[in-house]
């Protein structure tokens, strides 16, 4: 009975979403507050019923209701309860339900945290979100209903959750990623709403900023979690593969990063308005594109659950409707919107613009590399794949250029910056970053252009941050007072940019100095790797809750000494329900290096193929993402977002031209 209840509450949610898409919008167009006032209760209603459906789906999983075919395909009695619960989003149907649940969550949040906004704006925004919800609820109900029953032959046990997904990283990764993907729908709704009203003023940018930043924070965390999971579970120590599905998440992230920065310029200076709106549309469209690529089965990936052409067509239709509809609206309304203030050559505006050009170029590159094979295949021009080197050669220079620009941009002022002054500010960062890269080169015993460039840019950013912070915290009442006076959004920018530097350094070092070897090891064999010695012990069998494993013991010592650094137990698991094999790698993790051992396959006579890896600074890749996310949260917690607007729709007033006065210049 519960699954039917879930189905019914999904249908109810759909009906409420249809009302939400129509009624408040009609109220906003005709100027009737009575109709506009329906927006908040309807949004809450949609959320309640989708949440109820989701809870019922989780309930079906936890109680092993295998009469529901989705449960039977993705769960198993032997699963621990937390994997049963998370299996609810381990397959296509459930993850789609999670998608709409999160959309409804964002709707609820907009309804709740929009007290300072004019009612007509709230009505329009929630109506647009309601329209998106209608599309995805229809998709869920028509093509991917998680509550479908497999009657009358109810299987006695489920087929099991894919062992790769039985992992903490995969409990958290999809919700985080979806929070980001779907979160951009809020910025999108704000942009469309502003277009419809024709009032693209600074107030609009100010309202959009915290929502965009929060979505971006979740997306950053989601991507980092996915990368971390791939590293220890799937990828044999690789942390980024330029896999189309990874790219699908990177695309909205890049566009969202550009959007955050251009929103800053729009809010502070009233410039780039049309561009910002376009970016908001692009960021959400890319989120939808990501959903399409991952969920339609066009891709070769662990994420592509099932290839059902009907689903692909439906999603493609949704995507086309969204993109064409919003672009048509943009084309019709965007020229209405004009910039209100000027800027010159070296202003912060120009730096932010350059940042946007680079980020959008990077987005385009990744999109080309990802979509090119799909388009070619669709046109029947052959099956190709675009290799990792394509992304590495094209993305790296753009990332480095963005980093260089970031260091310089932090010193720049709104409106205009004196070129000579800027050059003097940048002298120290330049000298120190060149010196540190030279030091790394000497330490590594050779000049390598990419390592050198990566270290230069990372150090450049860090020194620029420290120097800018030093300037800004200057105060007659002491350094500490000055530091305290610096606003949270500035700290947010500092942390965010620091995160970029940390990730860059991690990527540079682990790519430049990492070492990986595939070796044949019999018990008693020892192999040297990057100053360590790894000794292979006996392989024993061990049993887990729902799998059997071959378990090796690898003892790691420093080369030429007997002091044990770590004892690792990599496993090869065979899951009982489905018979799938899974390599459970073991690693000795540290802040400066990981040692990574994975059992590949038995070669007979007790010998195994083993992959051993030395991964310097690999943790920094994700640490940087965490810092970026913290930076975003700090920026959002800034006071000014919590202060209610005096008059909510007040027109944009250009600030008095004293650019260094405000603390709130954080571009992140």
């Amino acid at each position, binding site marked *: 009975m519960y699954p039917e209840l879930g189905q019914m509450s999904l249908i109810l949610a759909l009906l409420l979403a249809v009302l939400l898409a129509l009624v408040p919008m009609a109220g906003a167009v005709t100027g009737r507050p009575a109709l506009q006032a329906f927006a908040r209760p309807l949004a809450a209603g949609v959320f309640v019923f989708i949440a109820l459906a989701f809870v019922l789906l989780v309930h079906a999983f936890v109680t092993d209701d295998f009469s529901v075919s989705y449960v039977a395909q993705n769960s198993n009695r032997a699963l621990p309860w937390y994997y049963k619960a998370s299996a609810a989003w381990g397959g296509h149907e459930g993850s789609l339900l999670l998608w709409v649940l999160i959309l409804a969550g964002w709707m609820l949040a907009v309804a709740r945290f929009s007290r300072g906004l004019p009612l007509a704006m709230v009505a329009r925004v929630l109506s647009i979100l309601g329209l998106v919800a209608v599309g995805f609820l229809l998709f869920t109900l028509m093509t991917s209903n998680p509550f479908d029953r497999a009657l009358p032959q109810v299987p006695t046990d489920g087929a099991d959750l*894919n062992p*790769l997904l039985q992992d903490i990283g995969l409990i958290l990764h999809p919700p985080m990623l979806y929070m980001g993907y779907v979160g951009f729908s809020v910025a999108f709704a704000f942009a469309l709403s502003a277009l419809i009203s024709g009032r693209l003023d600074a107030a609009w940018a100010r309202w959009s900023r915290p929502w965009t930043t929060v979505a971006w924070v979740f997306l950053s965390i989601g991507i980092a979690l996915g990368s971390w999971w791939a590293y220890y579970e799937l990828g*044999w120590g690789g942390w980024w593969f330029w896999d189309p599905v990874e790219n699908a998440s990177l695309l909205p992230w890049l566009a969202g990063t550009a959007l955050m920065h251009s929103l800053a310029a729009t809010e502070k200076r009233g410039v780039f308005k049309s561009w910002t709106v376009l970016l908001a549309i692009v960021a959400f469209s890319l989120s939808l594109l990501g959903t399409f690529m991952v969920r339609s089965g*066009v891709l*070769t*990936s*662990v994420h*592509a*659950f*099932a*290839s059902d052409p009907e689903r692909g067509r439906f999603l493609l239709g949704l995507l086309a409707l969204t993109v064409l509809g919003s672009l048509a609206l943009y084309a019709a309304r965007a020229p209405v919107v004009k910039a209100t203030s*000027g*800027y*010159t*050559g070296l202003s912060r505006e*120009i730096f932010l*613009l*350059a940042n946007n*050009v*680079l980020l*959008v*170029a990077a987005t*385009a*590159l990744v999109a*080309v*590399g990802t979509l*090119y094979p799909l388009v070619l*295949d669709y046109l029947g021009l*052959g*099956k*190709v*794949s*675009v*290799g*990792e*080197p*394509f992304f590495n*050669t*094209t993305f790296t*220079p*753009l990332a480095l250029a963005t980093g260089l620009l970031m260091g310089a941009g932090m010193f720049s002022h709104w409106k205009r910056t004196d070129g000579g002054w800027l050059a003097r500010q940048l002298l120290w960062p330049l000298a120190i970053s060149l010196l540190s890269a030279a030091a790394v080169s000497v330490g590594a015993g050779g000049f390598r252009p990419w390592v050198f460039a990566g270290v230069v840019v990372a150090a450049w950013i860090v020194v620029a941050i420290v120097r800018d912070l030093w300037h800004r915290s200057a105060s007659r009442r002491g350094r500490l007072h000055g530091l305290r006076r610096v606003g949270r959004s500035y700290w947010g920018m500092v942390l965010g940019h620091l995160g970029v530097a940390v990730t860059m350094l991690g990527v540079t070092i682990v790519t430049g100095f990492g070492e990986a070897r*595939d*070796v*044949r090891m019999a018990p008693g064999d020892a192999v040297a790797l990057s100053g360590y010695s790894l000794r292979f012990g006996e392989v024993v069998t061990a049993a887990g809750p729902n799998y059997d494993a071959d378990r090796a013991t690898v003892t790691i010592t420093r080369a030429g000494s007997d002091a044990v650094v770590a004892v690792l137990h990599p496993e090869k698991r065979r899951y009982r329900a*489905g018979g*799938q*094999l*899974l*390599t459970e790698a073991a690693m000795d993790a540290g802040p400066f290096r990981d040692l990574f051992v*994975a059992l*590949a*396959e038995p*070669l*007979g006579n007790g010998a195994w*193929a083993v*992959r051993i890896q030395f991964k310097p600074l690999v943790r920094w890749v994700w640490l940087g993402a965490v810092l970026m996310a913290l930076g975003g949260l700090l920026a959002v917690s800034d006071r000014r977002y919590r202060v209610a607007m005096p008059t909510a729709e007040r027109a944009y007033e250009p600030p008095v031209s004293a650019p260094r006065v405000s603390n709130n210049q954080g571009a992140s």
Partner: protein
Amino acid sequence: MHALRKKRLSVVLFLLAGVALAVALTAYALRQNINLFYDPSQIAAGEAPVGARIRAGGMVESGSVVRDPDSLTVRFRVTDFQATVPVEYTGILPDLFAEGQGVVALGRLAPDGRFVADEVLAKHDEKYMPPEVAGALKSPSAQREGKE
């Protein structure tokens, strides 16, 4: 008006520079990094270029996997049930690699007709088959039917 024009010019120049850079890099990199897919029949018919990095895929023929006892070298044959290609690979095979399963191998075709792979991808789970492999297996065999 002059300042506005100057601003517009700078914006346009920025955009042009970015686009030009992106296009140049993309064209350069794409040209070098596209790997074409060939199925065993095409390779047997001599359609695949020798020495270029390509992808080949099909089913691992049952009973064809031979391991070198002293190294990590593996030899197996990939078939689309019309032609087969001998593949040689040194390294670690994915967990899902097995006889009778679909694989895609990246590597180069040697002059003697062997395919020397530097990367082997296997299908990810029971429900999933790489689209190229599914396409390469034009005639669905009883063996595959039995698996489902």
